């Protein structure tokens, strides 16, 4: 139990000394991606081999002065596609795609002979060389990892690792040197904007709660990352949970709250477990509970597991869900800062926002303002996925261009295909095209382009993707996730989906396109909450930037990317066709020609696409192309 700031400093010094005593430490990535690829087996194998060789292994920190090899499981490194990842400290070697069979060789050569295992290093096909250390790899080289600094480098289940990295010093500073007003002002000055997507100034929100005259206030952390294609919150919760807790405790002090709630997605069992461990450790060490660090400040944190409702990412729906109701948004005002959880003033921020707080407090608002753009300071974590070479989690300064992200960090499009578009910010965001490649990635520029930072999901699409189908996919998602409370969202998204389905199946006419656009505007203006208000964004942006694709579907009944099944052209495979004539006889448009016992042909201009011939063919020779 740490009671004073001095004790925290002493502990820090003591732990730092212990870390310097490391002979070597092996960190096996224990993030969800790497676990899926078998990193736990690698971890167990390391333990087994090191034990067998009689090398001293302590699963946690090594005792001072003792030589040996420590092994820990870390959080996500972000380079998920290359997993399982293994880091060797203090050398900083990063091994990729490590299998249990490789462990013996790593121990033999790296641990015993201090030589890297070349074949396990990351190799870049463009630069045609291998990289010894993480920060040399192009994927990492161009990133600015501040919030994710510890992810992959520390054991997320050991609070001591976080303290060695300077953890809880920001909390100590706040409790001993600053008043709640000063904390709010510092955050306000830093220009930190909510990383959940909308980008509301965080300091302003905190101050509004602080100003409220209420005996009970709450801090709520939104960890309900429901956006398809985003996983940054998951990685922070799994890889560096204490950073987020520290941010929440500081928010509690700054706003006058004594209780915090974390609402985590039910689909993230590992995040829930790591948070539970972190909260328990923070209690044991005195960073949570009563009289934190000898101050008069009390704070406690509870975890609520979500039950699978996308709309619960919306503030007022989320608080309803924590209260044990259906997670439905309510009209505002009153806003969450006035009447939030249990009707009390509430600070509600996203995981990444809270994780930024200790950085700002420790380094100062002026330092923070040197990163990013004047309107959007700091960094943003993006989940880079889709048809791109390097998928994973990246942290970049705001204001970086899309081109730098996709071609420098992401190493371009897979299989040498052409870049077509990027879907940013999930179902609330929009599509950006080639002409936007040099756009500055910050809150305001993206909004001006009709997209938004949103959750930070970046799904890259290549030339083979059909934009109408992508729009249909997102509409299908938002329609399913609509809570049904307000009519524009409940009925509007349903009708929009119907029209999009008509388009991709080739049954739409030009009037449907007009109706779709009209409906999109109505849903956007008339919906109660953010889910409905942003649901038409993917449709509107694809209609704006890919009008020709919509027209091809509607007018020419053709899918230029050959994705939409309903718009494929029928063709007879001459190798399979035996010329039995069954298809010719059944075709209502007389579109099939051919002599008996000779391969038949379909005249596409006459074909009605009734598919009767497909059913009639006994040889499975008629297919959509």
């Amino acid at each position: 139990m740490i009671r004073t700031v001095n004790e925290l400093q002493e502990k820090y010094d003591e732990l730092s000394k212990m870390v310097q005593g490391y002979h070597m430490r092996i960190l096996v990535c224990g993030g969800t991606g790497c676990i899926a690829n078998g990193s736990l087996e690698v971890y167990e194998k390391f333990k087994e081999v090191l034990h067998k060789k009689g090398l001293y292994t302590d699963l946690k920190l090594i005792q001072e002065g003792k030589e040996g090899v420590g092994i820990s499981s870390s959080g996500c490194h972000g380079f998920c596609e290359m997993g399982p990842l293994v880091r060797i400290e203090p050398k900083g070697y990063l091994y990729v795609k490590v299998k249990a069979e490789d462990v013996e060789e790593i121990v033999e050569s790296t641990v015993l002979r201090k030589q890297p295992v070349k074949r396990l290093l990351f190799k870049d096909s463009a630069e045609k060389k291998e990289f010894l250390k993480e920060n040399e790899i192009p994927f990492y080289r161009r990133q600015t990892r501040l919030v994710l600094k510890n992810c992959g480098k520390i054991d997320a289940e050991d609070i001591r690792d976080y303290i060695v990295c300077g953890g809880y010093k920001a909390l100590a500073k706040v409790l001993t040197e600053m008043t709640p007003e000063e904390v709010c002002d510092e955050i306000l000055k830093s220009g930190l904007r909510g990383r959940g997507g909308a980008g509301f100034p965080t300091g302003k929100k905190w101050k509004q709660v602080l100003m409220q005259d209420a005996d009970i206030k709450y801090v709520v952390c939104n960890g309900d990352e429901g956006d398809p294609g985003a996983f940054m919150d998951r990685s922070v919760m799994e890889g560096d949970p204490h950073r987020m807790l520290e941010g929440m405790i500081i928010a509690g002090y700054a706003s006058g709250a004594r209780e915090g709630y974390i609402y985590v997605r039910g689909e993230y069992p590992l995040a829930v477990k790591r948070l539970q461990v972190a909260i328990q450790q923070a209690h044991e060490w005195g960073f949570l509970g009563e009289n934190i660090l000898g101050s008069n400040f009390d704070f406690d944190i509870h975890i609520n597991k979500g039950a699978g409702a996308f709309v619960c990412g919306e503030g007022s729906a989320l608080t309803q869900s924590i209260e044990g109701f259906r997670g439905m948004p309510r009209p505002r005002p009153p806003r969450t800062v006035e009447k939030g959880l249990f009707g009390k003033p509430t600070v509600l921020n996203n995981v990444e926002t809270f994780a930024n707080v200790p950085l700002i407090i420790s380094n100062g608002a002026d330092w923070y303002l040197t990163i990013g753009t004047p309107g959007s300071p700091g960094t943003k974590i993006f989940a880079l996925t889709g048809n791109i070479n390097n998928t994973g989690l990246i942290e970049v300064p705001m204001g970086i261009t899309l081109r730098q992200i996709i071609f420098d960090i992401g190493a371009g499009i897979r299989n040498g295909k052409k870049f077509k578009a990027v879907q940013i910010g999930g179902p609330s965001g929009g599509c950006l095209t080639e002409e936007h490649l040099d756009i500055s990635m910050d809150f305001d520029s993206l909004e001006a382009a009709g997209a938004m930072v949103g959750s930070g999901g970046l799904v890259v699409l290549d030339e083979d993707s059909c934009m109408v189908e992508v729009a249909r996919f997102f509409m299908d998602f938002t329609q399913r996730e609509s809570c049904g409370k307000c009519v524009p969202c409940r009925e509007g998204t349903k009708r929009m989906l119907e029209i999009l389905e008509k388009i991709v199946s080739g049954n739409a006419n030009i009037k449907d396109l007009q109706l779709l656009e009209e409906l999109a505007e109505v849903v956007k203006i008339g919906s109660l909450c953010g889910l409905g208000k942003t649901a038409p964004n993917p449709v509107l942006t694809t209609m704006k930037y890919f009008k020709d694709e919509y027209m091809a579907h509607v007018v020419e009944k053709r899918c230029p990317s050959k994705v939409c099944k309903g718009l494929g052209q029928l063709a007879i495979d001459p190798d399979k066709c035996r010329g039995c004539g069954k298809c010719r006889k059944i075709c209502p448009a007389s579109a099939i020609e051919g002599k008996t016992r000779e391969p038949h042909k379909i005249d596409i201009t006459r074909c009605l696409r009734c598919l009767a011939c497909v059913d009639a063919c006994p040889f499975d020779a008629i297919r959509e192309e």
Partner: protein
Amino acid sequence: MVNDISCRNFEKVNKILEKYDYKPSNLISIFQEVQEIYRYLPEEILVYISTAMGIAPSRIFGVATFYESFSLEPKGKNLIKVCDGTACHVRNSDKILSTTKEILNLKGDTKTTDDMLFTLDTVSCLGACGLAPVIVINDKVYGNMTPEKVRQLINDIKEASCNDQDS
């Protein structure tokens, strides 16, 4: 046997209710724990919870039907979730879904196999997008899926369950 609710043994449910202090704000957590035992929310248990907690049945059923992770239908022993998030979708998750349906012989909207061995669901995103397409079987994540890999995984489970019955 845990699935036998006909004996009206509410002991386990009582323990959960006590753990959460009968507090209405804990309703979702209570449902989550009940579902862990029965693999779904049996009607009788819901009625019991309504009476024991003094909450109107309308609210109980309202909450139970609102959230996707709650099921009022019995679920199979093995829960397969095919991810259809954006990243998985652009890497052809629909093929994984159709193959899985085919292997399990599920037609139309049926989600659970007749032998109660498997339930198939789709989820919107599992947050493992780097490994797309992804499926989850009983909370274990499998990445970079192909139809062949799915077939193998399901076969393994089937074999294991046969062996269980033999022994």
